[in-house]
């Protein structure tokens, strides 16, 4: 996992909470559009637990009764995706495994997932939440020099991301956060279509159904669990 840059002074001041449970989420940056979050325990507040057993793998608990729980869920998935594409692009066999066109796609996917991850890493504290731990990915089941395996894993992650965001949306209580999640899910869907097209060009496989899945967290985690060392439990969701 790459190092996280500390925020430049000033720019994020509006996102960071000075003290207590108040936070500010700016929409568009205009002062008039600053959304003050007060008494936010019932919506944004509540911290998701990071229980570290001390054995190297922790247990992450996400509480979907708060928006922070849902955001941390998204953050977990973005951590996973960012780590995957970072590993793919950083592999010594990357250029030998993928065409120049495909390399561009995979680099873009890495950049976008990093952007998503970095966004959540800052936004969650800004709305009064505590970030879950840095997750430990496990891609040992994927041979990075195998084009088919990498693309199929990418397809799994992207489809999973779409299903996860679609299924989590109903748990979000704040309309601004819902729109933010919406801004990300369509990009994941663009990703999914591109990966699927690399696997099955000139077919309808880029979009296998007229309606995408909307997966409950339990359905998502069943698929994600083999790629994450930590265990993740979701409360107050199906």
């Amino acid at each position, binding site marked *: 996992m790459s190092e996280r840059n500390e925020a430049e002074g000033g720019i994020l001041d509006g996102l960071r909470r000075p003290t207590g449970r108040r936070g*500010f989420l700016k*929409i568009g940056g*205009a002062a008039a*559009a600053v959304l003050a979050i007060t008494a936010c325990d019932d919506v944004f507040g509540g911290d998701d637990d990071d229980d570290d057993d001390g054995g190297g793998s922790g247990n992450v608990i996400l509480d979907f009764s708060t928006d922070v729980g849902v955001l941390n869920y998204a953050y977990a998935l973005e951590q996973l995706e960012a780590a995957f594409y970072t590993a793919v692009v950083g592999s010594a066999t990357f250029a030998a495994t993928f065409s120049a066109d495909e390399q561009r796609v995979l680099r873009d996917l890495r950049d976008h997932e990093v952007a998503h991850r970095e966004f959540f890493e800052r936004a969650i504290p800004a709305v009064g939440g505590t970030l879950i731990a840095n997750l430990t990915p496990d891609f040992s089941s994927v041979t990075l020099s195998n084009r088919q395996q990498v693309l199929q894993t990418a397809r799994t992650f992207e489809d999973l991301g779409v299903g996860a965001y679609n299924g989590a949306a109903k748990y979000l209580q704040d309309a601004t956060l819902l729109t933010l999640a919406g*801004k990300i899910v369509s990009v994941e869907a663009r*990703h999914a279509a591109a990966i699927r097209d690399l696997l099955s060009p000139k077919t309808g496989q880029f979009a296998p159904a007229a309606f995408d899945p909307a997966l409950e967290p339990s359905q998502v985690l069943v698929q994600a669990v083999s790629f994450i060392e930590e265990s993740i439990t979701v409360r107050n969701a199906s």
Partner: protein
Amino acid sequence: MEDRTTLGGLDPELIDQLATRRQALRGIGRWGAGLALASVPLALAATAKDAFGQTLPQQIVDVLNFALVLEELEAEFYTLGVNANGLIPAADRAIFTTLRDHEVAHRNFLRNALGGAAVAKPTFDFTGGNGNNNGPFNPFGNYAQFLVLSQGFEDLGVRAYKGQAGNLISNDTVLTAALTIHSVEARHASEVRRLRGEKAGQKEQAPYKGWITQAQVDAAAQALAPIYGAGNPAATFPSEANTTQAGLNLVGIEGLTAAMASEAFDEPLDRQTVLNIAGPFIAG
């Protein structure tokens, strides 16, 4: 991920509700030509109330009708395109029959969900001539122009749905259904954008990536520029060049460039701006 049926992923309860409605529709055919058409909307309206267990609030009805108009537009566009002799090359047909099938399914779903509250299908003018059929586009005689409009309608649809998500927050079923359509439109957009890039000899390169790079539009698609611009108010509906999310400027973080930051997030568009853009294609 395994292939799913057309309705795969929808709430099972909603699927049952829709199945009930489809049976109601099938029954109408047997009544013959003598059936008074005026009675059909009433029958559907009754089913609409039953289906959701309540009358949908007007705000939600408005959103669904807005979506319905766009889906009718896309369904007709792709149906005409697929049926236009010699338009779509054989190698690309599977892509566009898929798009057609999806838009038809979206249209059917929305029309059924709205029941008697559904607006009538508008008449469309795909020349972009406000109903005069003398507009600047010839999508069914010129494949390149067909692809331009396809990209435009898909990217516009993504922004339109995204702009309305907040208005559906009070109804989990409708919100979720709308999102499951919205993400498929994004898949569509990605596919068509990349197809255009292939045709232009610029695979996986801006401005033809599956994702939108800084509101860039290629020269042949300049007419689409408003689709990637700001809406109203611009602070809530920024252009696709936006790199600031919730007050956070992503540029410079972990080496992110403006191009990357703008690609990573799609932007919503307000209803009126969407209608202004789609207007030339809607005759009435």
